């Protein structure tokens, strides 16, 4: 139980929150937002894992132990750096270390003040939006969704956790095999094995029960960020938008191919995270980047592209295509080639990844 609690605290709270602080000076100097800190920190944690896991997996067949150690060391270092950078930046602005330390405390007060200023109608719609998310989380916990792909992806996680071998055993049978690079470069199953190692929870439980409880609210956090760019924050339109989005997710099972179907029936699979969380985050970041020139959002777009590559073999291509089209249109509309160049540079990880996919 203690391992579960500590592992959960480290992987899902400490690392994301502290690493999220890395980007805050480049995103919102004056007022840190806990929602942006957590979302960007979580993505950073995944991207760091992808960058470590690919070389470890290629170089070392029995690499799970070293993968866990390296991930913890580097995430630990980046977490400390995140806290350090946030403190230093606040100090530079003359706020002083003490003020910097109380910055996070101030978030609570901001939230309280924000809630107090909401109209009753706004409250009602926010309650409805919250209830819809809680309902989806409850159903993900209480129901089991059968998907044949789990016999591959979840077993890869179980194998990495139980045997320490990285992608060299056939999931279906247990026979040894060569590295299947097309599937292996998308390392999400290994990250799920890492969560299993850190928490001591069986990898199938991590995938089927634990992760949906994290990924569902996290995806709605990304919707919230998109909504904030579309509407004023205290406007009733924002919670209405959130409720409508929830309805379309819950009632979006018109075929087995839709984003919504993947979101609520295969929440733990890379394809689902790509189709929902990652593409939404990219949408949010594009809205931010085209709005102003804060570098933190550009950096986070690079991080999101690495995460896209982690999710599915075509993730890097889909993300690059989306960003490329938006960049091209923005360059034409704004008559500024620099926008396209900036967004194209963000896609360098995607190009490297696609080359690896084609060459290896």
């Amino acid at each position, binding site marked *: 139980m203690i391992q579960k609690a500590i592992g959960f605290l480290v992987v899902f709270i400490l690392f994301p929150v502290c690493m999220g602080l890395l980007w805050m000076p480049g995103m919102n100097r004056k007022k840190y937002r806990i929602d942006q800190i957590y979302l960007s920190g979580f993505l950073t944690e995944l991207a760091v894992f992808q960058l470590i896991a690919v070389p470890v997996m290629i170089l070392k067949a029995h690499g799970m132990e070293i993968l866990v150690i390296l991930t913890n060391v580097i995430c630990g270092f980046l977490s400390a750096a995140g806290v350090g950078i946030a403190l230093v930046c606040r100090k530079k602005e003359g706020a002083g270390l003490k003020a910097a330390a109380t910055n996070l405390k101030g978030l609570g007060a901001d939230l309280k003040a924000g809630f107090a200023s909401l109209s009753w109608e706004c409250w009602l719609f926010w309650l409805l939006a919250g209830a819809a998310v809680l309902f989806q989380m409850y*159903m993900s916990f209480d129901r089991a969704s059968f998907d044949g792909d789990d016999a591959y992806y979840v077993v890869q996680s179980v194998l990495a956790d139980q045997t320490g071998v990285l992608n060299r055993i056939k999931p279906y049978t*247990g026979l040894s095999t060569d590295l299947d690079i097309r599937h292996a470069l998308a390392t999400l199953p290994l990250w799920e094995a890492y969560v299993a190692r850190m928490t001591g929870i069986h990898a199938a439980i991590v995938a089927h029960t634990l992760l949906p409880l994290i990924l569902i609210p996290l995806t709605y956090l990304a919707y919230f960020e998109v909504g904030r760019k579309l509407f004023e924050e205290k406007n009733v339109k924002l919670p209405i938008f959130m409720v409508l*989005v929830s309805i379309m997710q819950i009632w979006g099972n*018109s075929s087995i191919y839709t984003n919504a179907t993947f979101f609520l029936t295969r929440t733990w699979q890379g394809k689902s995270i790509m189709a929902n969380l990652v593409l939404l985050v990219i949408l949010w970041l594009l809205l931010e980047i085209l709005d102003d020139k804060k570098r933190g959002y550009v950096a986070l777009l690079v991080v999101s592209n690495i995460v896209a590559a982690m999710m599915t073999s075509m993730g890097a291509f889909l993300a690059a295509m989306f960003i490329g089209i938006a960049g091209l249109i923005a360059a034409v509309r704004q008559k500024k080639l620099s926008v396209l160049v900036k967004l194209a540079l963000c896609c360098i990880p995607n190009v490297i990844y696609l080359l690896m996919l084609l060459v290896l």
Partner: protein
Amino acid sequence: MQEIFSVFQKYCGSGIYPVLFLIALVYLLVTEKDRKIRIVLVETSLVIAVLFFFPPFKKLMDYLDEGTYYRILWLLPMTVVIAYAGVKLFGKHHRIGFAVLALVLLLSGEYVYKSQHITKAQNRYKIPNVVVAICNEMMPSEEEERVWAVFPEELIYFVRQYTTEIQMPYGREMLEQQWEWNWDTHPIYKIMREDTIDIDALAPLLMEYNVQYLVLNRNVPIVGDPAENGLEKTAVIEAYDVYRNTAVEIFKKAVD
């Protein structure tokens, strides 16, 4: 082109959300003034939609990853565009607007939890309890090597999600008919998938593939005597009989 329309139709299924998305897109194209929203939500979506219906683009995608063309449609932010256009359209009449749009979405959508693939979870693994019980029955001890077992096809998907201590001579690759290169090729599966299982034909194959355990569904008739073929029944778990194939020993782990 026909093929692309077929992919689109399959993606849409019984729903009208893609139609609502197209309507919302046209509405935003006419009314949206904010440049960043126009670029990211409207014009990017339009270009992606046009590209999707462009046959050479499909050829390129098929070259990169055949059979996943529908994923291009994931790039269309349907939920965001529909909800945003709806809220924008309501204007000040957001209460009645919300009620109408919510009703349209509810009535025209398909409730995901009604899916035949979603059932009440039996445990936190989200694996049928019977699989967990059968696996525990044949789980090797710490000093023993992994074991090989043959399962009825309805259990195959779950076994190795629970434990990798149990290996199988064939797995999911044998069950997916669209994977023609694998499907129906394993000699043990060819016997196991029959309406009546021939134990006399199966037993020599279990020995040849070093299989220590056999699980049979009690509702599937068998011919031949398991005991005469060296199969010793060790457990009955719900609708399944678990047999130990005494002809193949369970190996001890080598001492370092």
